[in-house]
């Protein structure tokens, strides 16, 4: 189980059990590796844990409850689809898990560290080092080349566009099949190419977890398929974890698991 519908506290439900066992697994992993005995799959270790996430938006007097207690465990190495009706809170949840937005209440743990009390700058740093993002629109900086776009998060944080960042960016562009477009301005690329560049960019800092908010929502079927194959390929070769929100059932069918939001909570499939 990677998700849980309970909105109660950790104490009695399966999340806490999972957490504990996962932690022990991650401890075990090291010893397992050293002994070369595989007791449990490495991919079962917990990467991100959301506990009773509540999000409300206040509009003057009126308060909208969007997320009403989300409990979610994302294990390492999985590719998970996030589904739900339009307006159900998929983007909101991705933004919260991706540390772009703070929940009204609830707790987040990334790599066993609590993120609740971190400052904006610290969260920003976490995003840069551990998380990747692919959005539906506005993904790239139009005045920069594909290569510069891919290198951007690393170069800006390092302060310089170094040769090794360029090299890695080129490698990633090659991986998404666009090495011949590396010097094209982002504005000169097609929609599908832009998404592939965005995927390459999301990987520049070797993230543990990549969030994709309807990455194929803007693409035709062929391009969408290409992008999904690419994500799957990266997931399998690099063990990168993906959380992908999508309306497209064929996209969801390509994932390891599907998480559904219904009425502000995670629904059991």
């Amino acid at each position: 189980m990677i998700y849980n519908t309970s909105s109660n506290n950790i104490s009695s439900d399966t999340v806490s059990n999972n957490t504990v066992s996962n932690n022990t697994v991650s401890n075990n992993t090291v010893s397992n590796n050293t002994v070369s005995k595989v007791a449990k799959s490495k991919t079962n270790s917990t990467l991100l844990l959301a506990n009773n996430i509540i999000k409300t938006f206040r509009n003057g007097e009126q308060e909208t409850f969007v997320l009403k207690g989300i409990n979610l465990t994302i294990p390492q190495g999985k590719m998970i689809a996030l589904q739900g009706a339009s307006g159900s809170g998929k983007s909101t949840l991705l933004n919260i898990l991706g540390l772009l937005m703070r929940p009204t209440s609830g707790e987040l743990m990334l790599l066993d560290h609590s993120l609740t009390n971190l400052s904006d700058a610290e969260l920003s740093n976490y995003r840069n080092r551990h998380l990747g993002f692919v959005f539906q629109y506005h993904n790239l900086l139009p005045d920069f080349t594909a290569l510069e776009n891919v290198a951007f998060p690393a170069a800006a944080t390092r302060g310089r566009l170094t040769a090794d960042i360029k090299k890695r960016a080129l490698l990633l562009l090659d991986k998404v099949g666009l090495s011949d477009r590396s010097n094209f301005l982002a504005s000169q690329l097609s929609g599908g190419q832009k998404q592939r560049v965005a995927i390459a960019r999301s990987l520049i800092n070797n993230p543990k977890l990549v969030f994709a908010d309807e990455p194929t929502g803007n693409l035709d079927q062929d391009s969408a398929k290409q992008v999904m194959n690419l994500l799957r390929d990266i997931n399998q070769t690099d063990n990168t974890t993906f959380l992908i929100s999508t309306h497209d059932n064929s996209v969801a069918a390509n994932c390891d698991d599907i998480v559904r939001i219904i009425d502000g909570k995670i629904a059991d499939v």
Partner: protein
Amino acid sequence: MPFSLLVAWRYITANSLQTLLLVLGVSLSVVVFVFITALINGLSIFLTQETTSKIAHIELEPANKIARVLTNDNRFVAQPVSTLQRKQIRNWQQVIEIAGSTPGVSVISPIVDGNAFLVRGEATQPIAIQGVEPSKVDAITNISSYIIKGTAELTTGGLIIGADLADELGLFVGTPVLLKSERGAERLLSITGIFRVGLSSLDQRVGFLSINVARPLFDLPDGITSLGLKLDDPADAPAIAKVLQNSTQLKSTPWQEKNKSLQNATDAQGRTGNFIQGFTLLAIIISISSALLLSTYRRRAEIGIMRATGISRQFVATVFIFQGIFIGALGAFLGAAAGYQLCVKLASITKADGSSMLPIAPSEGGYMLVIILTIVGAALAAVLPARAASAVDPVEAIQQ
């Protein structure tokens, strides 16, 4: 190159037309700054030069007061010199030696001066006589260049007077006149030269004659009344005057003290200039600030993406500060160059007599100042946009 610099440069070159207009706007303000500065400085230089070329930069006269030691407490105090004695400089040869070895002093002219009346028939006119050494007739005022009739040569028995005075008494070169000094001495002289300097104080009232002719007229067989000094740089007059005051114990007056109104006039011009300079800088700051602020709105989504990928607020802010600095620097250098060209052009426009139409000094455009102020101002102008950019909320920006 820092990556933020690369990003800033890409941003301002991405929309080259807008950047060009903005840079042109900034450089136009810089041109105005340079023009005003060069004009005001030029005017001040012109006026100062006009004045200092015709008068002594420092005048040394007998002191009204001299330092004496009081017996009871070993201090120097200033005490009045006896008013019964004739005021004169007896040891003037020595003073010439001291002044001559003072750095910055270029010319020294001993003078015997005094008041007299010029008499022709029934008519008399007051005249201020300057008795100078014949070789130094041009030392203080370049009389030779202002002679309109006759010569500037000082002969025994010759007198050179201003054109206004000559008109007043109907005198021509060769006309004999009687000079009656304030000491009661008289001498028949002949007009050998007539000058027009353009200063009514000179043209109406002053006459030059040889110092040896002046001595008996003013009853000064040995001493002189004053020494006129010219300096390499007239601006040094107050400092050098102080030095000479100490070394010669004479009353030492820099030209500025006798021309306070000139100082006041140039000061007032300077303040007017500062006012205009301030406004041009303000115009630069406002135009850069508003243009960059617009750009932060246009690039909201991009900034949102940067922030989403964990790029710090500082990086975003730095990019905008650098954009401001780029625009400021481009506008400053372009404007300074154009301003210089303009000033050179304007300075070369001459009137019929060959003098400049505008007393503009192209080399005094305040280039260093305007470049520094513009770049600093541009950086300050970018602070507000930089703050706005770094405050962009990624979620809001991306969802738009």
